[in-house]
């Protein structure tokens, strides 16, 4: 079921630099359960796109199948989208991106969609460094099929019915680090302050940007004993850094304490301002990120924030040396070699 949302603009709403109101970035009324973590993420996506002054029609929304993958209906009504099949969103995103390198590709998926049926495509889209944002709404269960354990569920985590998960979890952040993503972050659906700038930075990053967002399922996995419940997350969250994202042409006004500050300049001139909380961790060093992750895992903590970034990232179009003009804008003149060439080809086969 899906409703048209009445367009209601708060009188105090202002247009962003691209000339759009925040409501221009919204979608239909959500049909997800009240309190579902996924809806908070949707709100952060809306905020990030509004703040990035991006024209809504320049964003392409993609998803697989699941409660999380329904999300594209609930934000960016003026963006085209493709709700694909279970676990296969990365391939559709790859093809779409190849067709037009000028748009922003924003994919959302679930932990079932990404870590089980879709883990093959997930790893391969990482290693190709496709220029896209990939948000995994991670609730440790299959929401849409009524709460079965997913592959990200922790050992010992209790389901609503009280049964205990006995299998080792797949940590998708480590997976992304291993397989070549060039922007890796983790956040919590309830932490808009951290999530919005992360999404903004991810959108500016020229390569594969993965954000694992812990997003409790209030209906099937928010019980005592579940390690993806709101209470548990709030108790175990550990933050790598204070984080701010400054798009190009905006004044840099954030101030950080000397010594802990790290700023990363992206290809378009935007800046990521990090106030590191750990002196022994360097977000532009894969090994360092890996170590920090292992440490916090051993401590039973959930490490959040920007974990790794490669500021020199080269996306798939650079690797394939594709034309600067999007492939979908090329015409017969660019594409068809014509009859004279064909005559030459014929003689090669005589």
């Amino acid at each position: 079921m899906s409703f048209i949302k009445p367009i209601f603009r708060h009188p105090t709403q202002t247009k962003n630099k691209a000339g759009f109101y925040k409501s221009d970035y919204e979608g239909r009324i959500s049909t997800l359960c009240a309190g579902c973590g996924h809806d908070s993420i949707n709100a952060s996506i809306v905020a990030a796109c509004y703040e990035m002054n991006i024209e809504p029609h320049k964003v392409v929304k993609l998803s697989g199948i699941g409660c999380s993958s329904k999300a594209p209906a609930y934000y960016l009504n003026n963006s085209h989208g493709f709700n694909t099949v279970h676990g296969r969103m990365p391939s559709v995103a790859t093809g779409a991106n190849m067709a037009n390198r000028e748009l922003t590709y924003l994919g959302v998926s679930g932990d079932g969609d990404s870590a089980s049926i879709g883990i093959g495509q997930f790893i391969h889209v990482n290693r190709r460094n496709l220029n896209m944002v990939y948000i995994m709404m991670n609730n440790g269960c299959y929401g849409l099929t009524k709460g079965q354990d997913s592959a990200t569920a922790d050992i010992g985590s209790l389901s609503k019915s009280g049964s205990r998960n006995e299998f080792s979890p797949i940590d998708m952040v480590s997976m992304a680090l291993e397989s070549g993503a060039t922007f890796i972050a983790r956040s919590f659906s309830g932490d808009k302050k951290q999530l919005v700038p992360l999404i903004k930075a991810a959108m500016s990053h020229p390569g594969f940007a993965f954000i694992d967002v812990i997003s409790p399922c209030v209906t099937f996995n928010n019980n005592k004993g579940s390690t993806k419940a709101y209470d548990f997350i709030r108790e175990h969250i550990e933050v790598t850094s204070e984080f701010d994202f400054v798009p190009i042409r905006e004044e840099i006004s954030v101030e950080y304490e000397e010594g802990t500050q790290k700023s990363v300049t992206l290809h378009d001139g935007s800046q990521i301002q990090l106030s590191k909380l750990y002196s022994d961790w360097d977000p532009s060093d894969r090994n360092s990120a890996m170590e920090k992750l292992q440490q916090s895992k051993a401590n039973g903590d959930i490490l959040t924030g920007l974990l790794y970034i490669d500021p020199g990232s080269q996306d798939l179009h650079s690797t394939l040396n594709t034309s600067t003009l999007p492939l979908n804008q090329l015409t017969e003149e660019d594409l068809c070699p014509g009859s004279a060439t064909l005559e030459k080809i014929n003689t090669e086969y005589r």
Partner: protein
Amino acid sequence: MSEQIRVNDMVVRFANVNGTGSSSANEVFSKAVFRMGIPVAPKNIFPSNIQGLPTWYEVRISGKGYLGRRKGIDVMVGINPESMKKDIAAVRPGGYFIYDNTKQLHDDMVRKDIHMVGIPMMQLSIENYQAPRLQQLFKNIIYIGALSVLIDLDLDVVKSIISEQFEKKPKLIPPNHKALDLGANWVRQNLVYPFNVRLKHSNLTDDKIMIDGNAATGLGAVYGGATVLSWYPITPSTSVAKSFEAFAKKYRKDPETGKNNFAIIQAEDELAAFGMAMGANWNGARGFTATSGAGISLMNEFIGLAYFAEVPMVLVDVQRGGPSTGMPTRTQQSDILPCAYASHGDTKHIMLIPANPTECFEFMAEAFDLADQLQTVIFLMSDLDLGMNIHMTEAFSWDDSKKYNKGKVLNKQELEGLEDYGRFKDVDGDGIGYRVIPGTHPSKGAYLARGTSHDPYGRYTEDGEVHAGEINRLIRKFNTAKYLVPKPELYQETFQSDYGIIFYGTTTYAAMEVIDILKEEGGQIDAMRLKAFPFQDEVKEFIEAHKTVYVIEQNRDAQCRSLLILELGIDQSKMASILNYDGMPITADSILFQLRLQMEGFNGQLPSTNNHNNASVSHH
């Protein structure tokens, strides 16, 4: 063993070991026959293996222009000791077995009813070349030289082909020419020549080229405007991707920037391969993938998505022997039904069925227009025989005034004037809605493409009536396709017989030979070739006009016959079948044999002659 002389009518088979360089020598042989103006049809019979197993190269030479396989091997060049016994046995009585007598042949290998022609190939090679690898390679060239004298293959033509091949490595030309002479001279000095089967210059190959279907398909994709190829390696479709890549690198680089006006991705599997190409099409580029066998099975979920979300897509299926991993290096037409109805739920798909490389080129280029016009998956149903063998075929042509037909796509201005855009609204009554490519307009035309049920605006629905309305519209669209896909080919102006044959794809070569043979015998059968699915009214009319129709195809289950019965509502008792599914291309002999056998049951009106070789259903 005196026999009458036969000119430009023979089957030559080479028995080699794969990985020994024989295939390029054998290709030179075919090409030389072609350059002499004589129709030639080579077939590679190869194992699913890289090195060391038996492989055969069979060449049909026919002044009458028959390009199918035929029974009866006239000349066997038996180089492989492992398969030699079988190879000797395969020669027709009165035929020739050419072998390397550097080592003497065992007595019980000798057949008295054929000519045993020993040539010291390896000895000649060892005497003239140093490195063992070269000795091996030149042995192949030596037998081509010998053959030139034995069957009157023009040695100058062979030499000029070799010179062209080594244009960039001219140092290799003289030793190759020498090897040819070694073989030729040895024969001149030691044997009686030429054979009773021999060649004579002709002019039947003007305006023709020699190319494999997969190369033609890849070239068709370049001409058809494909920019995105995603694929996963599988025999026999791999060379489609390789061909597209080679042609694109040559003809699709921006001359100024050196950048690629194409993107090729070797995907992680066939699911991803399909998803990527479909994503590209959804976003307004022309994408395609090529696969075979198991790849088609894996793509099924995505095929349904492209069908229901109405995304243009081009999928090349180079059919091979199934089921399962089956016979990866043998041919079949056994994906017809699985492709016609691929994916769960009510689905039907459009298939184009080329019968030669020229049609591979033309249909492939056309497939992109059809996909964009019909906003659905277009299957190009090739097969291993067509894809991986070199065929003599009409030279390619292209009309430079042709514009790509992108179908119904709304641009920004057109959207501006639209008040009530709905992606799937059937405004024109042909079942086809208007697409909008992402990024077109800031506030109009956006929708969420999906595989869930949707209303004409693309919005999710669980309303049964709305759902039924939409899938009914898809049938309207399918009917529209009938008017856009290639029409069947009829081989007579008016029907002459109570009996008809229907065939498609690579079965055409043998079927046309059958039509000819029957004519020579004073008989007549009406014939039609299918080029596409959905079937047009002409197909139904043809079937209705005949008492019995034989559907000739290369699969066990008479798949196309079933499809005709199902889709056209035909009485199945009038639909007979002629089949071949041993993995080797069907022969005219086999068709005639089965036809005659069945006609008796139908009180056959065809004059049946006794002197024609009865073919068995197996062909090896």
